[in-house]
């Protein structure tokens, strides 16, 4: 600890975050969403899509919803229908339902008890499958070997075509990447279904599908063996389908997921309630699957000024921490985000970056922390960009970041080329090998610029949290506190997919995930 933060202030900040977060958890507990229910069906083993590509979980859920209020959950009506022997299995049921030949009801009494038990068995099997994948990961890491050092080197691929992504990801791993993230196509987060199958037509990213997950994980397993280190795979549990994607990630042994409590609200204009409900469920799944989440505070600094808004990053990290722990995630699973986004023209910009990065490091000493590269102030001057990325890497090394997302010199130009990635990795390697040890010699003066700035940001965070504890998080979001985006609680997409839970509501997935920790 080189900053020597005031412990009382730190404790106060966490207490305030709890105070701000608790009403939101209450809100999340009181509602369900179409995606939470579909995720439940997926955990019970329903997959695939109809001829038009609409997933069976969507067809089935829509049919149920036509007959029964969403607030009761999907489990009781569906397993009730199965028990009434309408079909042998979920798929047949979904097909029939799609054809309009099944009617659903909310079972009561013994019927309800039996339906509940059956659903718990079915969903339990899915959760067991996730458990197996987690054990498998632990075994592979042990057998094959882990990333050789921290920070883990995190690289994105984004061709839009899974079959181009795979060789690029393998090449990146060979060149030193410890983590591969497959960026999603621009449109996916607003789709209220998860596309099916292997896909080749994304824009600036590749669709997140179960099959794409499977193909990429298999390819990286092969490469992991070849390299003697387990290469982690990341995708996005984000957008309108985050609960389902979280489930698929658990089932296909993805290792990390982008998953932020407010990103969808702020940057995809998804309804806040929808988001918080989906969030909580998806984090419960991640907790169970042993997946590390990556939060999205870096995004605020692409729209708001990185110096002025530094404390909003800290506040958001504290909230993400609170929500994550409440959902069952442990410290080592908290890849809290922050970024190197100060305008390079600001005097002492590098030292200010160090101050911010150290503050995060020392506020969350056990979290891996995800350190994001400059994007906003990157320009078409790729030489300057390459240098900035080098200093970003240095800041990461000096402040002990856990996950280093590798910056690309073409940030302001194109989605990364093969050569950009190779050059970027060369940059990271040089900085870590040549100057990584400089941390030993980095001792910010106790009242120097760095320590003073870190204290100032912490102070501003406590002030903001104090105000939010009075007015509520939803109001703060509506006011443009984060990333300057104003999002009212009743606006945004996907609100029609939210329902207040009825007294009869039952979700075996939530039950298992909440009771078995």
């Amino acid at each position: 600890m080189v900053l020597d933060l005031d412990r009382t202030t730190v404790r106060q900040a966490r207490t305030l975050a709890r105070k701000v977060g608790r009403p939101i958890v209450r809100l999340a507990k009181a509602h369900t969403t179409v995606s939470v229910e579909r995720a439940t069906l997926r955990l019970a083993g329903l997959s695939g899509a109809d001829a038009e590509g609409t997933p069976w979980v969507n067809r089935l859920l829509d049919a149920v919803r036509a007959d029964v209020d969403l607030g009761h959950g999907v489990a009781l009506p569906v397993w009730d229908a199965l028990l009434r022997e309408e079909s042998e299995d979920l798929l047949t049921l979904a097909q029939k339902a799609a054809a309009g030949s099944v009617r659903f009801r909310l079972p009561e009494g013994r019927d309800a008890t039996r339906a509940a038990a059956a659903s718990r068995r079915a969903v339990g099997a899915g959760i067991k499958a996730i458990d197996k994948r987690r054990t498998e990961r632990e075994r592979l890491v042990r057998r094959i070997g882990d990333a050789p050092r921290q920070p883990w080197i995190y690289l994105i691929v984004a061709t839009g075509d899974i079959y181009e992504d795979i060789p690029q990801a393998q090449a990146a791993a060979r060149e030193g990447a410890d983590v591969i993230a497959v960026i999603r196509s621009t449109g996916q987060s607003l789709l209220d279904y998860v596309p099916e199958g292997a896909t080749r037509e994304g824009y600036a990213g590749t669709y997140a599908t179960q099959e794409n997950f499977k193909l990429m994980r298999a390819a990286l397993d092969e490469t992991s063996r070849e390299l003697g280190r387990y290469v982690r795979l990341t995708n996005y549990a984000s957008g309108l389908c985050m609960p389902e994607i979280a489930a698929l990630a658990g089932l296909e042994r993805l290792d990390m997921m982008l998953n932020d409590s407010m990103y969808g609200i702020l940057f995809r204009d998804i309804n806040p309630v929808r988001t918080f409900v989906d969030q909580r469920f998806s984090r419960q799944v991640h907790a169970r699957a042993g997946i590390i989440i990556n939060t999205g505070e870096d995004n605020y600094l692409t729209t708001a000024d990185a110096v002025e808004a530094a404390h909003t990053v800290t506040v958001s990290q504290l909230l993400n921490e609170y929500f994550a722990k409440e959902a069952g995630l442990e410290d080592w699973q908290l890849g809290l985000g922050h970024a190197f986004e100060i305008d390079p023209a600001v005097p002492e910009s590098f030292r200010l970056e160090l101050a911010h990065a150290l503050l995060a490091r020392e506020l969350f000493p056990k979290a891996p922390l995800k350190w994001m590269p400059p994007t906003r102030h990157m320009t078409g001057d790729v030489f300057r960009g390459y240098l900035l990325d080098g200093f970003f890497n240095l800041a990461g090394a000096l402040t002990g970041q856990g996950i280093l997302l590798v910056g690309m010199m073409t940030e302001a130009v194109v989605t990364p080329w093969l050569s950009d990635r190779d050059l970027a990795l060369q940059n990271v390697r040089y900085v870590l090998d040549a100057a990584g040890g400089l941390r030993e010699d980095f001792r910010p003066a106790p009242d120097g610029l760095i320590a003073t700035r870190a204290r100032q940001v912490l102070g501003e965070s406590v002030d903001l949290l104090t105000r939010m504890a009075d007015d509520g998080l939803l109001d703060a979001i509506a006011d443009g506190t984060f990333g300057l985006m104003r999002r009212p609680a009743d606006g945004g997409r996907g609100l029609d997919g939210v329902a207040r839970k009825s007294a009869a509501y039952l979700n075996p997935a939530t039950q298992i995930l909440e009771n078995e920790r």
Partner: protein
Amino acid sequence: MSEQRLVRPYGDTTGDGMVQLSFTLPLPHDKVAEGAAAQLAAKMGMDPALVVHAKPMGPDFTFFVVYGRVHHLVDPSLVEVVERDYPLLTPKEVNAAVKRSLRRRLVVVGGCIGTDAHTVGIDAILNIKGFAGEKGLEYYRELKVVNLGAQVAVPELVERAVAERADAVLVSQVVTQRDAHLLNTREMSAAFREAFAAERRPLLVVGGPRFDETMAGDLGVDRVFGRGTTPGEVASFLVHRVTTRSAA
């Protein structure tokens, strides 16, 4: 204009024609690959072309850096630029002109269409905060701005334009991979052509950092704005075109 002399790239001496080039070839690194790199440079008009760096990237690709001289001449007098063909007005002048010629507020509907969610650019033009020290269009008393934000579907945009009786529609496109910006813009302009009679169609303006400003005709829009556009330029353009039209 046509007085301008011909020029060549400049390394360290007038006329030396020197340039730097880098690219990847899908070839394993060997002498043939280096020769192939030189061949590409030659086809681009570099002679001599020196392959100064060749780095294998896995077994199938090689990255090259090439330095050399190009013999092409550049004729600045042949350059077509979309020069500003309207006066640059202050907010005050814009307001006065709208008042005078329209006798009502000029209505602007804007947003990012398709799946593009990059709103910083359109916000820089529309929001009060503005860009590069200039206030955005919301600041202009005589402009009514409806900012639809990100990921607006084209039918939704047309609908709002009709409902708001928009004089101008401003669309931003930032993602260019696989020509997304061009496809989306064409879809948008076609939809407006379908929905409106030619003389009632709102002005169509697109902008974004990777647009070619000379492509307006091709894209079926009235104007294209590129990187570094300021709100004042856009406001002045709108006033110029809308008032000219209403005068006609």
